[in-house]
C-alpha cells in the first residue's frame, strides 16, 4: 500500500506507537472499525460454535429417555454456559460485528468517534469470553442457569468457583458493551455525513442507536446485581441471604430489569438488517419508514417496563401481574406494526429470492411464531401453566434463532461481498438456508408440544412413558440438520473468501452509502465525504430524479491536509489484559486483582497521554501517481 503517510512524532510513552500494516501485530493494534468488525465476527462465531456444541450435547443427552451421556452436574454447566454463551458471546458480538463494520459506512463516516475505545471494547469482550469459558478447566463452569437465580448462586449451594467466573465474566463483558454503547452513540450523533439527518439514516443505523441506548441503560442493573452477589459470596453481605432478611426475589428484579431490554438488544439489530435487505431485494423503499423507526424506539423504551413478566409465578400479586401483562402486550403492537411494514414492503415489489432475502423472509415467519408464543406467555394464567417448561424454550429459540440468528445470517450473506470483495455462491447459500431453516423448525417446533404436555426445562433426563420420547427424538434429529447447515456455511465461507467471484462495488443494486465505495472498502472508507440529500441516497443517485430530496446540505470544510487516520495503539489491548488479570484476581487472589487494577490504571494514563495520533492519506494524489 503506497499510502502517503506522514510519520507522526510521538511523545515517549511506555510503548512506542505501533505502525504495522499487516500481520498479527497490525490486527492486535488495529483501531480500524472494519477490522474490529471482522475480529468481532470471528470471535463471536467461534463462541457461537462452542455454544452450539454445548447445545448438541444437551440434545444428544435428551434424545432418548433415561440416558446418561453426561451426568446431571455437568448437564447443569452445559445449559448454563449454552445460554450465557449464546446471549453474551454469540449473538451480541455478532451484532457488534455488523455495528462496527457498517455503521460508519452507512452514515458516511471514516471511523467511529473513539477508534481506540472501540478496539478496547473488542479486546475486553474477548477477555470476558475467555474468563467464562476457562471456567470449564478451572474447577467447573457456572451451573445456576443463565439468569443465575439467588439463592442458588450463594456459597452454600454453589461453593465452587463456577459462579465467581460467571460474575466476573459478565462484569467484564458489561464493560465492553457499555464502552461500545457510548462510542456508537457519539458516532451516530456526531459523525453523520453532511445532509444525513436523523430521519434520513438507514434503518439499521436507527436500530443500532436504539440498541446502544438499551445497553447504556440496562447493563447497570445487572452490574449492580452482580456486585451485590459477588459481595454476598466473597465478603458475606446479606443482599440475597434469607437468614438475615435478604430477598432473593430482588435478584430476579434486578436481573430482569437488565434481562428484558437485553432481549431487545439481541433482536433489534436483526430487525435493522431485515429492514435493509427487504427493500433492496424488493426494489422498493421500506414501507412506512418513520413508523418503523418510531416503533423501534417505542419497543426499546417499553422494554424497560415489562421485566416482571419473567416473574409472573413468583407471587407478585394480581395487580402487578396485570400491569406487567398489559405492558407486555403493548409491546406486541409496535412489533406487529413492523411485521406489517415489512410485508407491505414486499407487496408489489420486484422480488429476487437471493440467499439474503430468503433468510429475511424466514426471519419474518419465524419471528412471528416466536412473537405470538410470546404474547401467549404474557397472559399470567397461561404463563403459570407453561412457565419453566419446554414451551418457553421453544419460544426463546424461535425468537433468537428464527429471529436474531436468521437476521444476522441474512446480513452476512448481504454484506459479505462488501467486507471481502468476493461473492458467496448462491447455490451453496440456498442449501445452507434450507438446511438451517428446516433444522431450526424440526428442532424447536416439537418443543412447543413438549412444553404443553409438561416437560420441564433444564432436566437432565426424563422417564419413558410420559409422551416425551418421540418429540425429543425429532428435536435431536433436527439439530443434526441445523448443524449440517452451519458446517456447510463454514465450508462455503472458507472456500468463497478466496475463490468466490469478484464482487463489484454494488452487487445487489443497494440503497445505502456503503455500496457507493469499492468492495472491500479502502481504509479511509470515503475518498470524499458523501453529501446526503435523501433517505436511500444511493438509490436516488442511481435511479431517482435529480435532487429528489430537499434541504441542500452544507459543504464540509475542505482541507488540503488529506484524510486524517487515527494511529494504531497498544493500550486498548493492554488495558483489556489488565482487566483480565483483575478478573482472575477477583476469583482467586485479591493481590492479583490489585496488580491487574494497577496495570489498568497505568494503561489508562498512558492511553490518555498517547493522544489520537495518526497520519494523513491523500487518496486523490495516490490515484494519480
Amino acid at each position, binding site marked *: 500500500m503506497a499510502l502517503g503517510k506522514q510519520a507522526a512524532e510521538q511523545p515517549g510513552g511506555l510503548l512506542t506507537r505501533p505502525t504495522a500494516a499487516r500481520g498479527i501485530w497490525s490486527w492486535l493494534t488495529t483501531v480500524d472499525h472494519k477490522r474490529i468488525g471482522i475480529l468481532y465476527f470471528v470471535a463471536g462465531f467461534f463462541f457461537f460454535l462452542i455454544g452450539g456444541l454445548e447445545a448438541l450435547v444437551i440434545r444428544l443427552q435428551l434424545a432418548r429417555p433415561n440416558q446418561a451421556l453426561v451426568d446431571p452436574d455437568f448437564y447443569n454447566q452445559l445449559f448454563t454456559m449454552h445460554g450465557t454463551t449464546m446471549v453474551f458471546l454469540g449473538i451480541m458480538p455478532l451484532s457488534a460485528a455488523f455495528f462496527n463494520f457498517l455503521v460508519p459506512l452507512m452514515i458516511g463516516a471514516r471511523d467511529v468517534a473513539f477508534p481506540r475505545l472501540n478496539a478496547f471494547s473488542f479486546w475486553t469482550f474477548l477477555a470476558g469470553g475467555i474468563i467464562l469459558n476457562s471456567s470449564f478447566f478451572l474447577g467447573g463452569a457456572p451451573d445456576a442457569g443463565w439468569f443465575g*437465580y439467588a439463592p442458588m448462586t450463594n456459597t*452454600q449451594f454453589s461453593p465452587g468457583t463456577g459462579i465467581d467466573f460467571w460474575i466476573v465474566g459478565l462484569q467484564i463483558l458489561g464493560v465492553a458493551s457499555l464502552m461500545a454503547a457510548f462510542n456508537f*452513540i457519539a458516532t451516530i*450523533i456526531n459523525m453523520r455525513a453532511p445532509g444525513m439527518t436523523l430521519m434520513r439514516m438507514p434503518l439499521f443505523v436507527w436500530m443500532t442507536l436504539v440498541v446502544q*441506548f438499551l445497553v*447504556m*441503560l440496562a447493563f447497570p*442493573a445487572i452490574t449492580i446485581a452482580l456486585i451485590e452477589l459477588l459481595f454476598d459470596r466473597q465478603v458475606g453481605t446479606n443482599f440475597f441471604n*434469607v*437468614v438475615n*432478611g435478604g*430477598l*432473593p*426475589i*430482588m435478584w*430476579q*428484579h434486578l436481573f430482569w*430489569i437488565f434481562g428484558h431490554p437485553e432481549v431487545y438488544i439481541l433482536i433489534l439489530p436483526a430487525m435493522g438488517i431485515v429492514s435493509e435487505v427487504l427493500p433492496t431485494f424488493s426494489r422498493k423503499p421500506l414501507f412506512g419508514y418513520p413508523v418503523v423507526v418510531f416503533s423501534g424506539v417505542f419497543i426499546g423504551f417499553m422494554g*424497560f*417496563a415489562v421485566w*416482571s413478566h419473567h*416473574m409472573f*409465578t*413468583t*407471587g*407478585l*400479586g*394480581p*395487580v*402487578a401481574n396485570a400491569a406487567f401483562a398489559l405492558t407486555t402486550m403493548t409491546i406486541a403492537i409496535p412489533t406487529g406494526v413492523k411485521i406489517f411494514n415489512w410485508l407491505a414492503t414486499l407487496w408489489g415489489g420486484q422480488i429476487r429470492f437471493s440467499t439474503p432475502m430468503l433468510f429475511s423472509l424466514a426471519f419474518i415467519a419465524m419471528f412471528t411464531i416466536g412473537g405470538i408464543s410470546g404474547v401467549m406467555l404474557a397472559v399470567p*394464567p397461561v404463563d*403459570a401453566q407453561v*412457565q419453566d417448561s419446554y414451551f418457553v424454550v421453544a419460544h426463546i429459540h424461535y425468537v433468537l434463532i428464527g429471529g436474531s440468528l436468521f437476521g444476522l445470517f441474512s446480513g452476512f450473506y448481504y454484506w459479505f461481498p462488501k467486507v471481502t470483495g468476493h461473492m458467496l455462491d448462491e447455490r451453496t447459500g440456498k442449501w445452507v438456508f434450507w438446511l438451517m431453516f428446516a433444522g431450526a423448525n424440526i428442532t424447536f417446533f416439537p418443543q412447543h408440544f413438549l412444553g404443553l404436555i409438561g416437560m420441564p426445562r433444564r432436566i437432565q433426563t426424563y422417564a419413558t412413558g410420559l409422551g416425551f420420547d418421540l418429540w425429543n427424538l425429532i428435536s435431536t434429529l433436527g439439530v443434526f440438520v441445523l448443524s449440517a447447515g452451519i458446517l456447510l456455511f463454514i465450508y462455503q465461507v472458507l472456500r468463497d473468501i478466496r475463490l468466490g467471484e469478484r464482487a463489484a462495488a454494488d452487487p445487489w443494486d443497494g440503497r445505502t452509502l456503503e455500496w457507493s465505495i469499492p468492495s472491500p472498502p479502502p481504509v479511509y472508507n470515503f475518498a470524499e465525504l458523501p453529501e446526503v440529500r435523501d433517505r436511500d441516497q444511493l438509490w436516488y443517485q442511481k435511479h431517482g430524479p435529480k435532487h429528489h430530496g430537499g434541504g441542500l446540505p452544507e459543504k464540509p470544510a475542505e482541507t488540503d491536509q488529506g484524510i486524517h487516520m487515527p494511529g494504531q495503539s497498544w493500550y486498548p489491548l493492554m488495558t483489556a489484559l489488565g482487566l483480565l488479570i483483575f478478573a482472575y484476581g477477583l476469583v482467586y487472589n485479591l493481590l492479583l486483582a490489585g496488580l491487574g487494577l494497577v496495570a489498568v490504571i497505568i494503561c489508562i494514563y498512558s492511553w490518555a497521554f498517547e493522544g489520537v495520533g495518526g497520519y494523513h492519506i491523500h487518496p486523490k494524489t495516490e490515484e494519480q501517481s
Partner: protein
Amino acid sequence: MKPSHEAGGSVHSYIVVALVLAVITYMEFALVEYDFNFLSPQAVIFWLVLLSVIKFALVVLFFMHLRYDSRILSGLFGSGLVIGVGMVLALSLIFAAFQGLSLAQESAGGEAEAAAEELIAERSLLERFLYPAPKDFGLDVSPTLPPPEIVGIKGELNLALTLPAEEAVGSEAAPPSEISAVAAFDWQELGASTYGNCAACHQPTGQGIPAAFPPLAQNLPLLYNAEGGRAYLISVLLYGLQGQIDVLGQSYSSVMPAWQQLSDEQIAAVLNHSLTSWGNDDLLADFNAIEPAEVAALRGQDLGPQQVLELRQQLVLE
C-alpha cells in the same frame, strides 16, 4: 472568541446558585433537626423530597449548564433519569407499597391517625377492586397477600420470598399488645393466609418436595407429640433450621429460614393451621392450639439454625 459549544452561565449566576444550594441544605437540616409541630411527617417528607429535587435541578441546569447546552445532551441524561427514577419507584411500589402505613401508625398523635386513615382510604380503592368485601384492618393488613387458592396454582419456588414485605408490615401494624386484648385466639383464617409463606417450599398440600423440602403432612404430628415438640416447632419458625435431618425415612439437608418478622399471632396461627390440615389432626395425641403468648415467650433467645437442629436431635420421636 467563545466556541459555540462552550455553554455556561456568568459568575454572578454561579454565586446565586451556590447561595441557594447552601440555604436549601440548611433548610433540610432544620426540617429534620427542629420540631415543626404544624407539619405532619408526610409533609416533612414531601418538603425534603421537593427541596432535594430543587437542589438536583439547580446543579444540573446551571453547574452542569444543561440549561445552556444542546438538547441532545439533555436527552442522553434524561433517558437515564426517566428510566432510573421509574425503576426505583416501581421497585419501591412492588416491595413496599404499605411501608408508609406502619410509619404513620407508629408515630403518635391525632395527625398520624388521620394520616393513617387517609392511607386506608387510598388503599381501599385498590382493596375494593381486589376484595369486594371490606377487610378487618387491625389484624390482616396485607391485602396483596394472595388468597390461598391462588397460591395453590403457583407452585413457584420463590413465592415465599416475596411475601415478607407484607408480613413485616403486618407485624408492625398489629403489635402483640393490642391483639392480646382479643379474648379467644381465632387462628383459622390467619393461619391459612400466613401459610402462603410456606406453600412455595412445603407446597399447598403440605407434602413438600422429595429430597428438597420436607413434608409437613404426617411429619408435624410426630414432632408435636414428642416431649418439648411444641416449643421446638415454635423455635424452628423463630430461628430457622439448618443441617441434615431425617423425615419419614428420607434425608434432607437444606435451610429453613427464620421467620422472626412474622407476628406472634401469625406464627401461632400458621402452626395451628399446619398441625390441623392434611389429615394431621387425626394423628395428634391431643391438640391444644398454640397461643401467641407461647411464641412471645420463646422470642429473644438468639438461637442459630444449627442450635435449633440440636433441639431437634434431643426430641424423642415415636
